[in-house]
């Protein structure tokens, strides 16, 4: 894929659950609004427990297998009647979970992952295998993202602090989120990093030229 600056960006309104076939139609740079149930956490230990429970057949949220699992930090708390409320949510840096994500994507056959900043090449490969896209949510988008929360479906693993719990939320028009990695092995993050690296020698040369034009070397 070349720089996506020139390609048209499609907007998709998706209702979860979606199939691998559905997400394979979506391209890097597209924008997505989501409806349905998503599962969120930003806990590193939570990721390990997901893997442990997937391996042992232990409890996992119903919406998680074949579903949408996002690195969204969610403030949730128990209310007087014993149910849970979610006050807001916002993405976290997904690369923090690089060491877990390829295994989680494969073990749970995920359709969507996300947060912000993307994931590494091993995750991209796993996502290609299962049919899974990565959604970039707005960092600092607390207010906008919170509007999409319709209902707290479940809060699992309340032994963790609020944002480390595994929270299932019903959302309405969650987005817009940008597709950062598609299900065909294309990653906007890899492309942009490579393009920036390729441009670097020219950018450094340009800075040097500007410097020398402003003040010719003294020839000391």
């Amino acid at each position, binding site marked *: 894929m070349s720089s996506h600056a020139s390609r048209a960006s499609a907007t998709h309104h998706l209702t979860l659950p979606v199939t691998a076939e559905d997400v394979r139609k979506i391209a890097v*740079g597209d924008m997505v609004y989501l409806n349905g149930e998503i599962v969120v956490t930003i806990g590193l230990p939570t990721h390990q427990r997901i893997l442990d429970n997937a391996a042992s057949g232990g409890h996992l949220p119903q919406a998680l297998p074949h579903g949408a699992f996002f690195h969204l930090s*969610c403030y949730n708390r128990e209310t007087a009647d014993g149910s849970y409320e979610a006050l807001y949510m916002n993405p976290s*840096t997904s*690369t923090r979970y690089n060491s877990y994500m390829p295994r989680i994507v494969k073990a749970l056959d995920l359709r969507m992952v996300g947060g*912000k900043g993307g994931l590494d090449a091993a995750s991209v490969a796993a996502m290609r295998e299962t049919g899974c896209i990565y959604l970039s949510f707005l960092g*600092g988008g607390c207010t906008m993202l919170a509007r999409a929360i319709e209902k707290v479906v479940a809060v699992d693993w309340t032994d963790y602090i609020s944002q480390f719990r595994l929270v299932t939320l019903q959302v309405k028009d969650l987005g817009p989120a940008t597709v950062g990695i598609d299900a065909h092995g294309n990653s906007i993050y890899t492309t942009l990093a490579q393009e920036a690296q390729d441009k670097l020698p020219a950018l450094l040369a340009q800075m040097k030229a500007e*410097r020398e034009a402003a003040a010719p070397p003294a020839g000391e």
Partner: protein
Amino acid sequence: MPISSQLIRSVTAQMYEWSLKQIPDDTRDVLKKFAAAERNPVGRKTLAIMLESSEAAKQNSQLVCSDVGFPVYMIKVGSRAQIDGNLRQAITDGFADLVDGINPPILQMVTHPLTHKRSYAAPGMPQVTFDWVDDADYIEITCSPKALGSGRWAALEIFVYPSLDQVEKYVMDCVLRAGSQACPPIVVGVGIGGTFDYAAKMAKEATLRPHGVHNEDPMVAALEERLLKAINATGFGPMGTGGDATAMAVNVNISHGHGFVPIAVCFNCWINRRTRVRIGNDGEVTRYE
């Protein structure tokens, strides 16, 4: 009449809340300018929702970002400032008040560096540093909660008699390493010279500079301008999903030192948290940002 510790307690708590619920006016203006100029449609949309979401946070007294960071205060103490009570304790109490009272409540972000256990309070929290101002009858407080998204990409390296080629390359390498992940468009702070710790302090202070203020030294201002232009040609764009708007500013501070030259580079994300107040001996509180 001295500045009361009670006033410092309430002001520092308030500053934290301000910094969480709105972005600085100058930052909003830059984002608007970027949104008008952005050539990438996804980048343009991303800038638009940054503006929309941060404005909604301000209007509805909500958080801009859920990562409220950990509490960082920088204080300049005037030589003629008079303080009644314990300044550091007042800030610690102020932060505790904030945690108890802020609505919506904030998540636990203060993290033990080795066990990674999270809390609201911990020894040495909030992080407070002090500077001295000769012949001044006020204290100036800057509050800049630091979160992981941009905080983790700061870097420092010691060079020996670096050429400007090396300086520019190092800053660009740091920017490329952060890439899509520091929630661009970013503010890049650079500290060059002095000692290891002083270079880091200069870089941090550089990220807190009001927008449009350049280094007074024309040679350094030109360096800032060159770097900004180069960074905005990298293509990372808003939220790192592509576009023109990668950096709002590059602010460089320098200090004489020896032939070994530390270069520190750090980042603020697009919400660019900073609030600053001055409290006079008369108890008057003036908010600058």
